């Protein structure tokens, strides 16, 4: 691959279409309240970032050269993997928090239930 080679046009179109589809899908999920706005921002940013890389082929190749990577593919895969790992880590952190909250709610419920029963017995 020569240093100033550009991405094949067809690949660019496919990538852009993929980005648009992701963007619209995320928007629809938010509209249907299946995804919180908080997370939608992240996915919209991903689709936007990917779209920029697809449309502006020189940027990706520039980054590839800057990193000293052999091919643009590995650059995409590298950042993709990094991103997914960050997302999964973030989600496990959230699940841990939810577990804690769930436990507290269940305990509170058990205490309240007992209190109600006790009052039922008394009256």
């Amino acid at each position, binding site marked *: 691959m020569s240093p100033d080679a550009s991405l094949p046009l067809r690949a660019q179109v496919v990538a852009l279409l993929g980005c648009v589809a992701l963007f619209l899908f995320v928007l629809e999920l938010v509209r249907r309240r299946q995804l919180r706005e908080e997370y939608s921002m992240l996915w919209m940013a991903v689709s936007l970032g990917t779209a920029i890389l697809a449309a502006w082929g020189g940027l990706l190749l520039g980054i590839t050269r800057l990193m000293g990577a052999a091919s643009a593919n590995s650059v995409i895969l590298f950042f993709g993997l990094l991103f997914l790992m960050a997302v999964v880590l973030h989600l496990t952190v959230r699940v841990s928090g939810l577990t804690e909250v*769930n436990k507290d709610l*269940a*305990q509170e*419920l*058990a*205490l309240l*239930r*007992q209190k109600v029963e006790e009052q039922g017995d008394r009256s």
Partner: protein
Amino acid sequence: MKTLIIIPAYGEAPVIAEVVGDVLATRPDLDVVVVDDCSPDDTGARARAAGVPVLSLPVNLGIGGAVQTGFKYAVAQGYDAVVQLDGDGQHDPEELATVLEPLARDEADMVIGSRFVAATGYKAPFTRRVGMILFSAVAAAAMKQKVADTTSGFRALNREVFTYLAENYPVDFPDAETLVLVKRSGFRLLEVPVKMRPRKSGKSSTTTLRSLYYPFKQLLSVLIVLLRDPPPRRTASPEDPS
């Protein structure tokens, strides 16, 4: 000393009434609460029929979450001391005095009823033994105190300790971590030998598969407790809620 016996129970329907009755008959001066950890059978109903209040958890939280529910109840009801006692009848109510006495004499903040191995022929599964030995070694170094039976579910706690644990309880892995946490927070820990009876029913909460990774998780949990600062103890007295 207003004392509460906390009995966490999961699927102990065949024996729970007997266990509760045993405690009430031996120590009529003490209150009992059963924490039903969302049992699939009618453990809760039978305990209620035995005449004690029952805290019914809507979802299964595991032994740690169940015991902590009892601590929260004890805090709300203003008890001075609690004793945790297994719902399967392996803890002899006669031994309640043994674990409560050091609390009453203010010699310790938390008393662990330790399995009297020789007297009962109690033999833990191999993996569990490995876990206990491993933890005992790490804990002894961490706490500067030797505890032989780190997985005992027979423990007496004074108000300061159970109030503290009602807020900060390592529910994932209660038995070992709790000891290190309590010790690190500056409470006095004491281990006393008690006789154990064979459990009347049910299985240990530790299954074979789980007991394989038990020692590792135990070690990890303890190391992590050591890495973080213990949550601060509140010094507020009951009449000064802050």
